[in-house]
């Protein structure tokens, strides 16, 4: 059974859809990259998946459950890291972690152990009593990442995770993603850092103007676009140019 399964999802902010029959799935233990130009529909796809937007058509299942069938189970099955860190200005770093642990009903000892490991990994142990107003953008992003990883759900949905992170932070994030996929969790990651996506993602979904233009492993994409030696950068540019050419003709 797929952890995340989108079938013919059509949706957007108004009656005119942004997404057109988007279908893809993510299996257990997979890290899948969602790639597309600005405005391709990546964030809209993610908003539909996390339940902030209702699809106009099609279905979205996480762990075999749709949002309407069992909202609590659906929400427990994923954690989300938004592109722009959204923190509670009135909570300290420790309180953010505690809040997440309460919301996902973690036992106290599990919370202590997981938070200690994450704080060490992201070098934030000394900032437990800090409020978000004292954090840099990268630190705010680290808080979001730690909260998401604290819950250990079946699926991680991550929107542009590398923006604002320093090289050590990026390394820690990638190490965490690798470890979690090895343990059976799945990841959907939207990013513009194509070299990293090519290196770390098991599969890539190329989204263009609200439709899935191509998807599969790097080899699948190379075959589909007829460029056996191409990098993801080359494939990405080729795909968008081809799509624009098709539109013109």
């Amino acid at each position, binding site marked *: 059974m797929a952890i995340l399964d989108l079938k013919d999802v059509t949706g957007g902010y108004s009656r005119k859809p942004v997404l057109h029959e988007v279908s893809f799935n993510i299996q257990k233990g997979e890290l899948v990259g969602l790639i597309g130009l600005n405005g391709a529909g990546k964030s809209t796809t993610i908003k539909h998946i996390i339940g*902030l937007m209702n699809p106009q058509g099609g279905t979205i299942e996480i762990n075999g459950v749709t949002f309407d069938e069992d*909202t609590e189970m659906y929400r427990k099955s994923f*954690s989300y890291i938004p592109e722009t860190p959204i923190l*509670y200005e009135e909570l300290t770093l420790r*309180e953010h972690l*505690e*809040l997440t642990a309460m919301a996902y009903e973690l036992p*106290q000892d599990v919370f202590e152990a997981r938070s200690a490991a994450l704080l060490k990994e992201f070098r934030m142990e000394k900032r437990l009593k800090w*409020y978000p107003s004292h954090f840099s953008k990268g630190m705010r992003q680290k808080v979001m990442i730690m909260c998401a990883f604290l819950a250990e759900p079946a699926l991680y949905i991550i929107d542009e995770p590398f923006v604002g992170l320093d090289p050590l932070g990026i390394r820690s994030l990638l190490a965490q993603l690798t470890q979690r996929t090895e343990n059976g969790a799945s990841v959907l990651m939207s990013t513009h850092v194509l070299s990293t996506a090519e290196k770390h993602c098991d599969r890539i979904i190329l989204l263009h103007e609200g439709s899935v233009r191509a998807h599969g492993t790097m080899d699948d994409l190379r075959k589909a676009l007829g460029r056996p030696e191409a990098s993801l950068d080359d494939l990405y540019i080729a795909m968008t140019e081809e799509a624009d050419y098709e539109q013109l003709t």
Partner: protein
Amino acid sequence: MNSLREVWGNRFGKYVMELQRYLQYVFTGHLAIVLLFSIGAAGYAYSEWLKDVPAELPAAWLIALLLAASTFIATPVTLLKPADAVYLLPLEKELPTYTGRALNWTFFSKLPLPIIVFIVALPMLSAYEIGSKQVFGLLLLLIIAAMWVSVRTEFLFRKANEGQGVWQDRFIRFVLSTLLFYAVLSQQWIILVIIAIAYALYGSLWMKKAAVKPFPYTHFIELEQNRMMGFYRFANYFTEVPHLKGSISKRSWLGLFMPDAHVERTDAQSFLLRRTFIRTDESFWLWLRLTVLSILGVVFIPFPIVAFVFIGALAFASAIQTLQTLRGGDEFRMDLLFPNTEETRPKEIFRLTERVQWLQAGFVLLAGLFMHGLSVTPFIMGAVVLIISEATIRLTTNKEEE
């Protein structure tokens, strides 16, 4: 691109519209009546006092101090925006076209205060037989000049020091202004000339220092944002201001109400909402103000019926404002994705609002017992707060659910 003169013109037009938009709520009929009565009462008390002024009062010094106090704070109103740090950067040489207009507006917007102080001071000067028409004319001219120099000097000081140590500059100007106004009132013309020269030299010193420094966009943009936020906070007492960013304070002295969490036993929404209420200045101070006003009403309103109406109205305002603040706006919050959010958050908002209103009722009861002793009145007062609060919370919640 528009010239900087046009940029200032456009921004100023929008700024005036923004001020008008909120000031219409601030100066409603009620506030106008309160102001009218307050000014009338103060004017009457002042005129009575003038009939028999104490002879030993150093009137000239006092008026010089008051006039200096009304001119020395000259925070520039630049209307700069965050994007200016990028887009106006290449136009730094042309920036004086913009800042010159900004300083002219700052000068004219701040001038009324010292002029009012001057007008109010005139009867007192006559009562103490200080000065003459010529002296008053000169004083008025010097007030205008001091305001003009203050606006420009504070701007230049901020430019030269990126806003650091501005109170040093203000203190020096305050001392110079006090001496200047006293010299006029006491008609010590040589001292007046010396102080005026010192004032001019002080201004020219900062002109020279500022000339070689790049324009500190970050400081002036932050200053402008803080100034507007102050205005929005003030306007928020009278009407809802959507773009008001709530400020946060730790308030660790209220740690008793924010106990350490035990993640298995504490409810996430209860944990979050308590901290939101206590640490968000807007919600906390509003509740506290209304509670203190209720207590003052109980203590100072001599007629119990009037006191019941007064504390009932404040309980309604307090309950509804607390509910609204805790509900938050339409912005995305991470707890929207938490399991169980839809069921638990509204319940916790209801419960917390209820509790803070019970607390308010408790304070009102205690104040009532203090004033009226062990009798029925204090308990009715407490009950009024409880009943109005409960009704407000329940009716508002039911309305939302419908």
